[in-house]
């Protein structure tokens, strides 16, 4: 079922420079060439009856309801498949057309249940609407003949055409008895999602929709994106939430709080209750598509585990005490003040959240800088994309990706390195697959055979299956080929880049040691393949690089980002549509939290705290003296806590005890602190070490903005009151006031106004403008009043592009006899980050535990079989997981996800980090894997501690 508020014009919009004028029912209308008659009519306000057509899909022409008459043409062409022609004269309603349509509808209804009043689609069913529109008054065929409607025939025998409901998917039901075989679901799965899980099986009256080889939906290849459910014109595919609750009565546009794609959604509501989430067709990042998380996995927001009252305790071994907001805030503030009085101004700090809004993030860093009087503020981007900020700023001058997602429509060669878009950024993954199916070439650099390497109608031209930790070596070999084979875009480099730096770089990458042949043993990638891939990237037309945490989360993360930027500059693939360097951000607001000045060394807009002019502007606006030295980064905070100089931390919406590496080190640091304040939806792993718990608010409970991976600022809109009385920005404001630094915002839009006032790249941004434009890509200011889809167009933000030297320095994390395998980590489609949200939804039906993926050869050597419990040991710690034997892995490399705290994936990861930013080296840990029959010591301790903390929560007493 489509959104309750969107208008469906039947076929997709077409872009063309040529305009065509035609007449429909006597009305003159001008549309771009290539537009269908149906869409042209809709634009003129004439809605031609239709069933198989929807503007989210290409025209199909099967339902025969949208027929029209065209002057000087024979017959009754389908308006959805007929393109407009200059001077065409169309009639959409004639006695003959009315007859045909009624006849068609009569046939449809003769094989459709007549339970409209109790049907979930009632009130929004396209079949019902069309019956009304064509004036269907009788069904002369009766209902006794062959049908798909009834389980039994009139004679009481089993009806061979009847198929029972498939309720296997937790979020939607499939009722084949209501199917009209319009193929919209099949086409949505193919065209929109690109999974090709559905098909029409059989012919003629036998035709029916089937998932994979006639499987249940849950057992099929279906990834539960819901595009089919949205496309279905009847109740055949219906959200279970819609079946439970009935039709929504209003709809609010907001932005998804999962990954960095930042899909725009319509929250379809009844009062304060969400009936369903429908991706917004006008959404600039997602164009009406979504994944299983954004559309369906929102139950966490109303989950009983949510804690909606503040709590405090003196020691973490004490039971929690439920207190008023006033008491909790007063206690936190008095503790922070006591710590600063005892241990000094620099003994406390804060962590901002990439899950919260820009306005909330901004307030936390403001509280730290202005209220705490130091710069000890950091954000979870530290552990994911901080190298992106450093690397892109050094080379091009701005800490952000260069394109919008739609840029890929102009791309000829896609290079994906260290990213897994179909799992981690699924909606953009679908867009990428669409472009690849249309003919763009694909190079994948990844230690694993990710889905993109081979998926329906897509096959990577080259899969550079490198060894983990050798990104920089591989990038240098690609650069070597480009330089030594004369593939540099000399004109671009001469015009746009610093000549000295380029000359230095050219010499550097030309060294023999970086030839693909010399590096083959190190990277594991055949030299000939590197050469072919480099040639394709350099000469295949518009080439765009997409990368993710497989690039950044390494000891040379920043170097690799610079290596990527070097490649793009050397080949002139920067500054126009179809090219560029595109970091795929992990969390919804990673880009925004970085933009908002969450890093300890910089204010909003990436300006260093030591810059007196910038600092002066903040001092004038905030009315305080600000510190001019960088503060502690998250890993530094842990070190400082363990050595006793860092005592208090305010953490908004991040679970460092689960997400940060070397868990035992992190928990030791948390235990060494005297006041840990956690603001979150749930008692997460970190909150188990907290002294003050402030209840957080979900994205549905507040106003604000997120910035996605494209620098796109989109609105988050409140659809229900905060469950715990205050939105997160209000809680921070209360704490600031209690700390003695006054804040008096009455709405998040005022915070954005302040951000805009103080940040050159945000000067032109306001809630009003976002409401008008739908979304805005920063920079948005005097020079770019409506935002900037593509950056570095005529010159780089820093002026000239700067090539950086990228020496390959192998990680110290090496395999040896004790730890002969390399562990790398990643994520999966159905779960999100630490899983605090998705684990509390039915998404666990797809992934209910983290597994260790291991190559059959490595498994056999160790006597490991599928589902065996295996111990994974590194120099940092040991944990136990169940094995999954998988040829996606290369021998010598094992893989796991980190969505469940008890898995302890981060007990194994080490303190190694990126040289420039301290981003942890999650992707490379030397381990040994052995068969075991019990949980690790850490897991036993973890379980005991968690049980104890749960008991302390259960014992929480109200005053």
């Amino acid at each position, binding site marked *: 079922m489509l959104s309750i508020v969107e208008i469906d014009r039947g076929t997709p919009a077409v872009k063309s420079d040529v305009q065509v004028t035609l007449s429909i029912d006597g009305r003159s209308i001008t549309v771009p060439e290539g537009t269908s008659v149906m869409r042209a009519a809709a634009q003129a306000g004439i809605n031609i009856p239709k069933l198989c057509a929807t503007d989210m899909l290409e025209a199909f022409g099967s339902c025969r309801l949208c027929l029209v008459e065209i002057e000087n043409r024979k017959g009754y062409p389908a308006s959805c498949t007929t393109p407009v022609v200059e001077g065409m004269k169309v009639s959409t309603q004639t006695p003959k057309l009315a007859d045909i349509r009624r006849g068609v509808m009569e046939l449809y209804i003769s094989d459709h249940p007549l339970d409209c009043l109790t049907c979930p689609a009632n009130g929004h069913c396209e079949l019902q609407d069309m019956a009304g529109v064509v004036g269907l008054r009788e069904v002369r065929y009766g209902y006794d003949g062959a049908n798909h409607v009834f389980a039994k025939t009139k004679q009481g025998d089993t009806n061979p055409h009847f198929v029972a409901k498939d309720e296997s998917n937790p979020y939607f039901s499939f009722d084949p008895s209501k199917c009209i075989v319009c193929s919209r679901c099949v086409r949505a799965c193919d065209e929109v999602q690109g999974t090709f899980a559905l098909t029409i099986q059989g012919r003629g009256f036998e035709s029916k929709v089937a998932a994979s080889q006639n499987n249940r939906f849950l057992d099929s290849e279906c990834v539960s994106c819901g595009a089919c459910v949205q496309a279905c014109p009847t109740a055949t595919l219906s959200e279970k939430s819609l079946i439970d609750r009935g039709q929504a009565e209003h709809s609010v546009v907001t932005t998804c709080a999962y990954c960095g794609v930042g899909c725009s959604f319509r929250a379809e509501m009844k009062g304060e209750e969400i009936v369903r989430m429908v991706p917004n067709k006008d959404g600039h990042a997602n164009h009406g598509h979504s994944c299983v998380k954004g559309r369906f996995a929102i139950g966490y927001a109303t989950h009983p585990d949510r804690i909606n009252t503040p709590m405090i305790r003196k020691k973490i071994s004490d039971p929690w005490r439920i207190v008023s907001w006033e008491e909790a805030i007063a206690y936190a503030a008095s503790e922070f003040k006591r710590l600063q009085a005892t241990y000094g101004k*620099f003994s406390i700090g804060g962590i901002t959240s990439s899950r919260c809004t820009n306005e909330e993030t901004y307030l936390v860093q403001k509280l730290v800088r202005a209220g705490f009087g130091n*710069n*000890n503020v950091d954000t979870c981007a530290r552990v994911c994309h901080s190298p992106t900020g450093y690397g892109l700023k050094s080379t091009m001058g701005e800490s952000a990706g260069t394109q919008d997602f739609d840029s890929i429509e102009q791309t000829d060669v896609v290079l994906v390195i260290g990213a897994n878009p179909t799992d981690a950024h699924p909606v953009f993954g679908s867009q990428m697959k669409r472009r690849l199916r249309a003919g763009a070439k694909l190079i994948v650099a990844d230690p694993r055979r990710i889905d993109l390497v081979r998926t329906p109608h897509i096959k990577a031209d080259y899969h550079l299956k490198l060894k983990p930790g050798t990104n920089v070596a591989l990038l240098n070999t690609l650069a070597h080929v480009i330089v030594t084979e004369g593939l540099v875009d000399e004109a671009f480099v001469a015009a746009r880049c610093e000549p000295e730096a380029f000359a*230095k770089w050219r010499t*550097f990458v030309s060294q023999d040691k970086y030839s693909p042949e010399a590096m083959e043993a190190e990277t594991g990638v055949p030299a000939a393949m590197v050469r072919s891939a480099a040639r394709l990237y350099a000469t295949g037309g518009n080439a765009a690089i997409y990368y993710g945490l497989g690039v950044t989360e390494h*000891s*040379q993360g*920043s*170097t690799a980002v610079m290596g990527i930027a070097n490649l793009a500059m050397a080949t002139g693939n920067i500054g126009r549509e179809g090219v560029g360097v595109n970091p795929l951000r992990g969390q919804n607001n990673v880009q925004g939290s970085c933009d908002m000045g969450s890093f*300890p*060394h910089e204010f909003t807009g990436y300006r*260093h705290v*030591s810059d007196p002019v910038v600092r002066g502007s903040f001092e004038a606006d905030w009315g305080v003296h600000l510190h001019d*030295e*960088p*503060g*502690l*980064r998250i890993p*530094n905070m842990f*070190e*400082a806590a*363990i*050595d006793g*100089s860092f005592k208090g931390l305010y953490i908004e919406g991040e679970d460092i005890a689960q997400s940060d590496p070397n868990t035992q080190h992190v928990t030791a640091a948390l235990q060494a602190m005297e006041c840990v304040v956690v603001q979150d939806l749930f008692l997460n792993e970190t909150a188990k070490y907290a002294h003050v718990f402030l209840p957080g608010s979900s994205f549905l409970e507040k106003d604000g903005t997120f910035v996605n991976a494209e620098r796109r600022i989109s609105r988050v809109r409140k659809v229900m009151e905060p469950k715990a009385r205050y939105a997160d920005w209000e809680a921070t404001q209360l704490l600031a006031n209690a700390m003695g630094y006054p804040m008096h915002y009455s709405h998040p839009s005022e915070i954005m106004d302040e951000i805009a006032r103080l940040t050159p790249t945000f000067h032109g941004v306001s809630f009003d403008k976002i409401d008008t434009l739908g979304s805005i890509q920063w920079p948005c200011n005097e020079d770019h009043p409506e935002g900037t889809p593509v950056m570095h167009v005529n010159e780089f933000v820093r002026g000239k592009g700067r090539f950086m*030297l*990228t*020496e390959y*320095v192998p990680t110290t994390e090496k395999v040896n006899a004790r730890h002969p395998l390399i562990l790398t980590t990643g994520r999966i489609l159905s779960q999100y980050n630490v899983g605090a949200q998705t684990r509390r939804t039915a998404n666990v039906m797809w992934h209910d535990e983290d597994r260790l993926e291991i190559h059959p050869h490595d498994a056999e050597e160790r006597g490991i079989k599928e589902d065996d419990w295996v111990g994974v040991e590194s120099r940092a710690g040991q944990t136990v997981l169940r094995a999954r034997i998988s040829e996606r892995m290369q021998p010598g490399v094992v893989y796991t996800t980190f969505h469940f705290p008890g898995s302890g994936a981060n007990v194994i990861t080490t*303190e190694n*980090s990126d*040289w*420039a*930013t*301290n981003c942890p080296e999650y992707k490379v840990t030397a381990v040994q894997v052995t068969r075991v029959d019990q949980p690790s010591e850490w897991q036993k301790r973890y379980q005991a501690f968690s049980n104890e903390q749960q008991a302390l929560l259960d014992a929480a007493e109200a005053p």
Partner: protein
Amino acid sequence: MNIERLVTMANDISHYFAADPDQAAGAAAIADHLKKFWEPGMRKQIVAHLAGGGEGLEPLTRMGVQKLAELDNQVTAANSE
């Protein structure tokens, strides 16, 4: 803070800048990086560690930390004027 960890981090930084054929430029870049991204307490600690013999600091790292000491002293001197 654990000085061994700081030494490792400082060496990691110098490994990157070692690519610059101009060693003095490399050392200056290390100092600049430390100055921009390290909290003052950490800088003080690594400078003191160098003064105390600098165990574990590699040659280029030493040059960088030495440069940092000069940078930080300059600022201190400027502030006290």
